């Protein structure tokens, strides 16, 4: 019996592992192609090991297009995703404390409104938003991509509320007895305790902003302002594409920040999804 269980166990691991490799095969293929010589990419599709290993694709691809290199695109993406993430996380934490701990008039109404916005299709908002940003002369600036983030994001507010609700109320109460006000309680008591939730929110926010395509597509139409995702789309234009190796190389690079976040903070991401359960 024990032997049979052991054999089943081995079969389970082999099957799970093989299926897992099949699942990520497109990613492996993409990485391996990025190190193959251009002539080999389509003739040696059957093997993941490059016949002649080369980093030429990365050097060529990094040069970008229209005299703008990928250094610029990466810088732009880091600015948008970095500032946007700081703005979202700070504002969401402040709002979350208000909803989670302070009893005030009309709270239920606003909380419900916020939850409804989670289900709202972005399409009903983008046209007037575009007109609004256009009127402000914000086209071809990062403002439309960054400024709205400073007003909290319903998803992260909800995530942080859930976390605050798990903290014992006595903490707030004893601080109140000691004479602390709401701002003091938030700053000295709550904020240090919700760090894990803030990390989860930062990771998701960075990852989604990094991946965002529609926003940059709408608001940025100068190559010097392109984010990586928008640049990659133009770089891989099917009508002009000749250097597939470079496209693969830049595709791999564009995924690097997200993959690194995933490798180092996997727990925060997977648990974040499991507990708040959304998106993605």
């Amino acid at each position, binding site marked *: 019996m024990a032997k049979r269980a052991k054999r089943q*166990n081995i079969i389970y*691991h082999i099957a*799970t592992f093989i299926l897992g490799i099949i*699942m*990520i095969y497109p990613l492996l*293929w993409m990485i391996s192609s990025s190190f193959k010589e251009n002539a080999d990419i*389509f003739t040696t*599709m059957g093997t993941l090991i490059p016949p002649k290993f080369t980093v030429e694709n990365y050097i060529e691809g990094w040069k970008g297009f229209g005299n703008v290199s990928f250094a610029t695109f990466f810088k732009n993406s880091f600015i948008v995703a970095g500032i946007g993430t700081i703005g979202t996380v700070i504002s*969401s934490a*402040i*709002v979350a404390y*208000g*909803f989670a701990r*302070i*009893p*005030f*008039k009309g709270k239920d109404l*606003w909380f419900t409104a916020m939850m409804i*916005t989670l*289900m709202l*299709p*972005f*399409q*009903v*908002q983008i*046209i*007037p*938003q*575009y*007109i609004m940003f*256009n009127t402000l002369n914000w086209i071809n600036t990062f403002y439309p991509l960054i400024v709205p983030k400073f*007003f*909290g994001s*319903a998803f992260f*507010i909800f995530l942080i509320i859930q976390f605050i609700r798990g903290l014992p109320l006595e903490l707030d109460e004893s601080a109140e007895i000691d004479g602390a*006000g709401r*701002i003091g309680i938030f700053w000295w008591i709550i904020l240090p305790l919700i760090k894990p939730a803030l990390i989860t929110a930062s990771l998701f926010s960075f*990852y989604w902003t990094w*991946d965002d*395509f529609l926003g940059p597509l709408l608001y940025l139409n100068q190559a010097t302002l392109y984010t*990586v*995702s928008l640049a*990659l*789309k133009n770089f*891989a234009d099917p009508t002009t594409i000749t250097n*597939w190796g470079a496209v*693969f190389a830049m*595709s791999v690079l*564009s*995924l690097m920040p*997200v*993959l690194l976040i*995933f490798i180092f903070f*996997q727990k925060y*991401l997977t648990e974040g*999804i*499991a507990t708040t*359960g*959304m998106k*993605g």
Partner: protein
Amino acid sequence: MNKRERYNNVMGYLFISPWLIGFFIFTLFPIIASFILAFTRYDVLSPPRWIGIDNWFRLLEDTRYHNSLKATFYYVFTAVPLRLIFALLVAMLLKPSTRLAGLYRGIYYLPSLIGGSVAVAVVWRQVFGSEGLINFILGMMGIKGLNWLGNPSTAIWTLIILAVWQFGSPMLIFLAGLKQIPDSLYEAASIDGAKGWDQFIKITLPMLSPVILFNLIMQIINGFMVFTQAYIITSGGPLDTTLFYSLYLYQKAFQSFEMGYASAMAWVLLMIIAFFTALAFKSSRFWVYYESEEGK
């Protein structure tokens, strides 16, 4: 109102003010504005002109709009169920707590992590291209490949497969749900002689039904909003078979600058999504099992 209540009211609104202000500027105002715009003709350059319900009538006659509805419904009602079934199957596969469980979870979540990116969309176009990976593999097996992206009956399936491949998030949610089901239920069922499939139908599915409902609603909403992949991989073609709602709306609003018409489209989408969300909630009475003592 005593002093403490007043203090809390002031502080409450102070703390939620970032969201509240943002809500009025970036959500409520745009929603109302887009409803009003839906009754106008507006090309951004000249001021909007009131045209009454013309836009809404036009929706009834616009063949391309009907194509886009067809493509979107086809996509949502194949990709969402397939993705959820797949997510559930993988979640069941990964349920045992082995030493490698964390690693497996990571590997199986990877496609979701990267699947929505432009990079994967670009690669996908290559994978399903005439001289792409899929045809290469088929060729090795002696099967003649197809022009997957150029063929009206297969193009949408390249996008459906991409969507199903991103099963990671519902999978993780299912996995968390599966771990909540007490082992004692399965043990009791085994004693009663219930085998695997019976246990799945009589225990796993009912116990998991609240999670299924949640996943279903979120995935339907996401499904109706799909944009990036179709924009990059198929650009709506061939013959409008992948002209998803968001894509057509984008073309109308931001390429031909028919903002009024596009706003009407946006509102119809809002109603479609509201309808299906409500339907899922209403129907849940018949198939979602709520444990009384948990009472969320």
